[in-house]
């Protein structure tokens, strides 16, 4: 092929970026090797080990520099709109607001791996200077994982078909060689703008949620690395404190990150909630559950010397599931079961991730087998009135919960196998949410009941009398509280009443524990706060989902049979969208909602739909409450998806409930602009009525006595006004005065308009003999202006967010307490 000289390309950043990517990969390898040598020579030759360790440190620092270089270069390319690079072209455009520049990183696969890797770099540097005796081992593990991540950015070809990683600096013309435009030297003249960022990501939650979630994912590496280091060294004391501190950190951050995703889904997606048991959500929940389980057994081990094996298994499993999640969500293996927009990068990534997952699994498995005999074990058995006994059971329940979620989430993974054996093509449950809820509600019940109980107990053995007394008081208060709540919130399902009791039990128990046992000392409130937050969270989930109410029940149309228990549930299922014509109020629950029109602004690609809500007192008919919501929608102006709509909800937040509204369909704003409606002629006599879309007009007669200045009057004009009284369903709204005049033997008309209803009135002709006029009325058809929307009420959803915040605070309090506390000798 002949070499074409392309015009206007900036090739330097790409070359630099690619160099940084290779540098960071090589340096990660170097660091892994040298740290490994440092660990291996530790006992034989301290001097040599020290030198290896120094090499390892320098290698890791260079690796970090390389990663930072990749990050900065890619950022530079996106910021300067260098669309000759595929990444910038694919994920950004000229109109992108600067605050979303970083979001381009997590839209693409390469950027996500880069972000993940950057967090590992930051955490790795912290670990490097704090790990002390375990540094060489922990850093070996971190470096190995960094090798895996850096290889994702290489884009090397091994032979024509096998590609390792994906280079974020690949040029657009290289990516799409087959397109003829790229054989022209001046092709960049035609690539004026990028493809743009997915509109769903143009949301403030999407600026903050992915970095936090990736930090959470990244921080799970540290407890795993410490676990491997402990196994490797065969020393189960040194790792305890850092593993616990880092688990608390990871638990807090990952939990917060997951629920920020929930907040994003709630605010900008339209499935009507913060959690849908979507495979992508589950994929991050499972590692968190395993981490929390592992954290608890770790505490048991630290206090009593028991549960070491399960702790190590949980910690390893937790991290393997982080990679398994990546595998599930990044390779397209979930196929039809997930709503999340992830790209299918094909077979290369599939095998790449499987290879990493398999290697990590092998590493953990071989180490556990090698150390199996030497694990410290306690011969005696734990007492039933000990904290460790119930804590172990609680952790085991969390493990079972994680297993259940994984089995259902992984249906697309194992269904080909099931098909080969049974011949059935297994699909996810038809009602996924119910499927998970029905099982996981029992997990929530057991965990909430265990929480307070466990904190009242002491390690090894407890004073039964005190514990029973405290449990009795707590259960009593909780029973009264939950009875009141079940009654006022009309919760009838037995399982949910038990859960209500469970969460009240946790909340009351934690407050009691914080005041009575920990005497309100802030430093010690970590556990109480985390579990209090968990209790409040469960309560919020229960209220907001159990009593979630669809306000927008449509009363017209056909009812369909959805196999629900009774007719009203069927009706509900089939009628959740309501059509609102402009300015026509529709009753929704206790409110009336009116669509008032739409608005756009030049620097915002969204269309806002104004929906006014009003609540009236049933007896006095006075407005007691009114507010306006602006659900909006992106109308995509570009390419193939032109005019496709991507709606965002808007909510009215009250302390005790949210009113959640979004548009499911609207009239086409482009079709609206070419006004096709015609004037219709009505012959009217005095006192006659003409109906309009919103009401009617009464023709009150002609007025020849014109007020001054109604139009540019000239001396010889003959002018009259028609008096039209406009009414809507409630009463008179306005009076219209269309004008008719004769000048130089020609007739002229001036319309009068009723702005709010878009109505134009004109005198077509005057028929003096009949004392009538021909009135011409133009008003766009009602159908032109409508929206179809859904409205939901989420009661007490603020409890969900409050619970999450208290829980996260608890994690960090506990972490700070761990860091500052002088460790007691470990019981073994």
């Amino acid at each position, binding site marked *: 092929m002949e070499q074409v000289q392309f015009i206007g390309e900036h090739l330097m950043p790409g070359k630099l970026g690619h160099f940084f990517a290779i540098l960071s990969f090589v340096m990660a390898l170097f660091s892994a090797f040298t740290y490994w040598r440092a660990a291996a020579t530790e006992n034989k030759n301290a001097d040599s080990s020290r030198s290896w360790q120094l090499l390892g440190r320098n290698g890791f620092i260079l690796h970090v520099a390389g990663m930072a270089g990749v990050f900065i270069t890619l950022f530079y390319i996106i910021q300067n709109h260098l669309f000759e690079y595929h990444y910038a072209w694919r994920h950004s455009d000229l109109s992108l607001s600067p605050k979303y520049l970083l979001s381009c990183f997590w839209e693409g696969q390469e950027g996500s791996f880069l972000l993940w890797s950057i967090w590992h770099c930051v955490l790795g540097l912290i670990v490097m200077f704090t790990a002390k005796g375990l540094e060489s081992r922990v850093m070996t593990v971190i470096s190995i994982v960094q090798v895996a991540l850096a290889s994702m950015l290489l884009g090397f070809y091994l032979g024509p078909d096998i590609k390792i990683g994906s280079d974020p600096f690949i040029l657009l013309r290289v990516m799409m060689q087959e397109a003829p435009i790229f054989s022209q030297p001046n092709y960049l003249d035609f690539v004026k703008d990028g493809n743009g960022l997915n509109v769903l990501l143009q949301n403030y939650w999407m600026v903050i949620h992915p970095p936090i979630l990736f930090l959470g994912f990244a921080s799970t590496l540290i407890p795993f690395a410490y676990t491997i280091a402990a196994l490797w060294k065969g020393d189960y004391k040194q790792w305890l404190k850092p593993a616990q501190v880092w688990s608390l950190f990871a638990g807090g951050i990952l939990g917060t990150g997951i629920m920020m995703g929930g907040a994003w889904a709630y605010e900008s997606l339209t499935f009507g909630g913060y959690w849908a048991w979507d495979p992508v959500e589950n994929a991050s929940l499972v590692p968190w559950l395993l981490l929390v389980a592992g954290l608890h057994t770790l505490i048991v081990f630290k206090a009593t010397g028991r549960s070491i094996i399960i702790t190590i298994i949980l910690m390893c499993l937790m991290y393997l599931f982080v990679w398994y999640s990546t595998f599930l969500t990044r390779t397209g293996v979930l196929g039809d079961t997930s709503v999340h927009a992830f790209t299918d990068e094909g077979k290369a990534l599939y095998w790449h991730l499987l290879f990493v997952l398999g290697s990590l699994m092998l590493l953990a498995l071989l180490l556990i087998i090698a150390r199996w005999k030497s694990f410290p074990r306690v011969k005696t*058995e734990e007492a039933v009135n000990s904290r460790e006994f119930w804590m172990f059971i609680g952790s085991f329940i969390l493990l079972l919960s994680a297993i*259940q979620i994984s089995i*259902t989430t992984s249906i697309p993974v194992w269904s080909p196998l099931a098909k080969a054996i049974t011949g059935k*093509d297994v699909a996810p449950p038809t*009602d996924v949410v119910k499927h998970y809820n029905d099982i996981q509600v029992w997990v929530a019940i057991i965990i909430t009941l265990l929480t307070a109980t466990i904190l009242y107990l002491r390690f090894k053995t407890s004073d039964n009398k005190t514990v029973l007394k405290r449990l009795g008081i707590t259960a009593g208060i909780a029973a009264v509280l939950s009875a009141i709540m079940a009654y006022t919130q009309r919760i009838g399902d037995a399982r949910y009443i038990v859960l209500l009791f469970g969460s009240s039990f946790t909340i009351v128990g934690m407050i009691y524990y914080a005041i009575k046992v920990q005497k309100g000392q802030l430093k010690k409130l970590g556990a109480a706060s985390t579990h209090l937050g968990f209790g409040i969270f469960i309560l919020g989930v229960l209220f907001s989902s159990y009593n979630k109410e669809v306000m927008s029940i449509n009363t017209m*149309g056909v009812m369909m049979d959805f196999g629900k228990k009774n007719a009203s549930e069927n009706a509900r299922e089939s009628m959740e969208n309501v059509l609102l014509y402009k300015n026509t109020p529709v009753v929704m629950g206790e409110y009336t909602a009116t669509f008032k029109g739409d608005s756009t602004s030049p620097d915002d690609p969204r269309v806002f739909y104004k929906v006014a809500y009003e609540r009236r007192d049933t007896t006095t008919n006075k407005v007691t409450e009114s507010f306006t919501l602006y659900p909006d929608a992106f109308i995509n102006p570009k390419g193939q*998806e032109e005019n496709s709509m991507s709606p965002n909800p808007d909510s009215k937040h009250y302390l005790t409930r949210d009113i959640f509204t979004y548009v*499911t369909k609207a009239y086409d704003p482009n079709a609206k602009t070419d006004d096709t409606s015609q004037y219709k002629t009505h012959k009217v006599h005095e006192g006659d009525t003409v109906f309009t879309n919103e009401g009617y007009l009464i023709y009150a007669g002609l007025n020849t006595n014109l007020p001054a200045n109604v139009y540019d009057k000239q001396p010889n004009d003959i002018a009259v006004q028609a008096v039209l009284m406009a009414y809507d369903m409630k009463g008179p709204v306005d009076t219209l005065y269309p004008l008719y005049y004769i000048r130089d033997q020609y007739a002229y008309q001036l319309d009068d308009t009723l702005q709010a209803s878009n109505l134009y009135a004109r005198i077509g002709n005057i028929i003096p003999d009949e004392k009538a006029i021909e009135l011409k009325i133009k008003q766009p058809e009602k159908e032109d202006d409508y929206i179809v929307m859904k409205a939901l009420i989420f009661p007490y959803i603020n409890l969900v967010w409050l619970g999450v915040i208290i829980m996260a605070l608890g994690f960090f309090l506990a972490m700070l307490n761990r860091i500052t506390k002088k460790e007691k000798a470990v019981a073994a």
Partner: protein
Amino acid sequence: MIQRQDFMKRTHIILLILVAAAVTIIVSMFGDFSTYETFASAAKEPGKQYHVIGFLDNSKPFVYNPEVDPNHCTFYVKDKAGNLNKVIFNGAKPTDIEKSEQIVMTGSMQGDAFRCHKIQMKCPSKYQNDQVAIGNAS
């Protein structure tokens, strides 16, 4: 305290019970799982909920009149076996369904129509296969 034999600690007994319970739950949850069917196989058990994968037939009209009923769409889908069937969706028209290259419907066969309450679409983006959000009625 009674000293039991090492292999039968109290914890072990409880673990056994828990594992047994978990296995029971997991086995029973397989009953929840649905299957991917064709229109023909879904018709064998009318009223039972299934997943059907198919392709929208754009040569037939897609009927959605929000003025009449904002929760009612009627269209035709060709399933993987190549059979064309009428589909009724209760919900607003999913955005861009005409451009979808594949749709997964959850619902049941009722009479001659497949009535579904959930639709998931796969839409072609310009150069990549992006998954696009679903039109979900529930």
